[in-house]
């Protein structure tokens, strides 16, 4: 699906591409299911879209574009297999073994595209693949991004991304990573990896780890789309609901999160009128689903924390006791130094800066917080509130040196400068 010039008018091409992108994951998953080979599936899917770009501008977009694309792609695949006997024999072996491993699913009754995307999720996010490539594969195979778009989203050269994708696909093929949904007994072990891959796409988009731009909204929006598909495919999995809720509730703040100059705006200072209310409502409803009917998972709890922020009409109305309590739950479920850092900040809001600072100082030796600029920044904020200006300034300077993005650095410099004319210490 890397576009080639076919001479189609740009507008028609754009509308066809929009259709194709929506259908891409479905199409690819169906083809993978049928032929058991990701490369062949991608190749014929790409040929089908090229055919669509030739025919649709003249003949109009068919009533069921997905079915048209699938039929065309299948025909191409059969042609290809007729031409290449060796390849066909290899695929035949693959398919026989795949069927031996797993019974075929019931045929799709509606006549539209059967939804085989869940298996593709589990393949792309397979633990045998490098963690940093799983998100890229999801974007390529399920969100329908081209390699160039995936590369841009990750701020790496296209050639680098192409190489990573080729290597990952080669491992899928040669080590025979299967296209299958793990059984109920394996699911608790495998689902967190899929959720984590989608979440990594989101965090990468939400806060660029380096470079001039703080947010890459496109990538975050793609992650929301992936989480939405996953939740639709696994409606009974509460953590899939929790992940979608979390992403929606955080993504709802996107317009308020940066100032006009691109500088980050802290949660407390954001203009809450600019939060996306529809997205918040959807997220809040999902939080209820994620926390109902069993012990909560880490995404559900994080979503509940995000929901409490969303429900506060202004920062002073935030329910900090409840948030601090949820961080206690999160620490028990999925302890990490970063969670501990956020918990300390919530405790500081509930019990005052001294209590928070004591918790932060207890994290001083954590290797995972070394080099993590939010840690000295959080210390600096609390030291400033306690009127310990000199120590606060030193901590801000430490944070500035560690921050990866220019807007983050600028914001920390502003907070450092504000120390000079700070109001008298609180409490």
């Amino acid at each position, binding site marked *: 699906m890397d576009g080639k010039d076919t001479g189609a008018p740009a507008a028609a091409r754009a509308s066809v591409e929009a259709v194709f992108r929506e259908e891409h994951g479905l199409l690819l998953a169906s083809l993978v299911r049928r032929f058991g080979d990701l490369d062949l599936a991608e190749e014929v899917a790409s040929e089908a879209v090229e055919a669509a770009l030739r025919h649709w501008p003249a003949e109009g977009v068919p009533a069921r574009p997905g079915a048209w694309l699938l039929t065309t792609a299948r025909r191409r695949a059969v042609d290809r297999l007729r031409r290449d006997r060796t390849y066909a024999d*290899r695929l035949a072996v693959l398919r026989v*073994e795949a069927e*031996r491993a797993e019974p075929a699913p019931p045929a799709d009754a509606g006549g539209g595209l059967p939804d085989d995307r869940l298996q593709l999720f589990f393949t792309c996010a*397979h633990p*045998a693949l490098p963690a940093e490539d799983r998100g890229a594969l999801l974007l390529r195979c399920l969100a329908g991004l081209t390699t160039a778009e995936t590369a841009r989203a990750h701020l790496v050269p296209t050639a680098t991304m192409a190489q990573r994708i080729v290597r990952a696909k080669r491992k899928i093929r040669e080590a025979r*990573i*299967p296209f299958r949904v*793990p059984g109920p007994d*394996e699911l608790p072990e495998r689902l967190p990896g899929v959720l984590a891959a989608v979440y990594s796409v989101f965090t990468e988009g939400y806060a660029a780890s380096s470079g001039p731009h703080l947010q890459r909204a496109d990538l975050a929006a793609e992650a929301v789309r992936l989480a939405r598909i996953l939740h639709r495919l696994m409606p009974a999995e509460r953590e899939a609901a929790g992940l979608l809720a979390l992403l929606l509730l955080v993504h709802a703040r996107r317009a308020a999160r940066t100032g006009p100059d691109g500088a980050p705006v802290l949660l407390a200072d954001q203009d809450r009128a600019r939060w996306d209310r529809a997205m918040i409502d959807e997220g809040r409803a999902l939080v209820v689903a994620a926390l109902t009917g069993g012990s909560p998972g880490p995404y559900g709890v994080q979503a509940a924390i995000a929901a409490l922020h969303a429900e506060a009409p202004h920062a002073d109305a935030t329910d900090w006791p409840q948030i601090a309590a949820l961080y206690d739950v999160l620490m028990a479920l999925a302890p990490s130094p970063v969670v501990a850092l956020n918990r300390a900040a919530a405790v500081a809001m509930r019990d005052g800066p001294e209590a928070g600072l004591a918790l932060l100082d207890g994290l001083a030796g954590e290797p995972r917080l070394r080099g993590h600029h939010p840690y000295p920044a959080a210390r600096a904020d609390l030291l400033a509130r306690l009127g310990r200006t000199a120590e606060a300034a030193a901590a801000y300077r430490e944070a500035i040196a560690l921050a990866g993005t220019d807007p983050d650095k600028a914001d920390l410099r502003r907070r450092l400068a504000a120390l000079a004319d700070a109001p008298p210490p609180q409490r």
Partner: protein
Amino acid sequence: MKYLLLIQTTSVDADGAADECTVEDWMAYDKEVRDAGVFVSGESLADLITATTVRVAPSGERTVTDGPFAETREVLGGFYVIDVPDLDAALDWAARCPGSRGSGAVTVRPVADFSA
């Protein structure tokens, strides 16, 4: 599809058994692999002190040295070759192998197939 399970052990006692599993564990696993019909081959290797390495220089000169000089902490203790449909099945057999417990690890390598 054939997969090689390379059983890496960090420390073995004089009998070649690691702390984490007993001879009975290995016998039970071996029986499972054979009963499931996935066994192709498998051996347990003698102690590392018995290993010898051979290299042949471009001149044809042969060098024989004692051991591999195991600076790495992991030592190859044995292997299985199994025939299963896909990587998930191979990983499952690797996870059930006593050699994957505690300080041990099992590396799964697909066997290259040149017949297709």
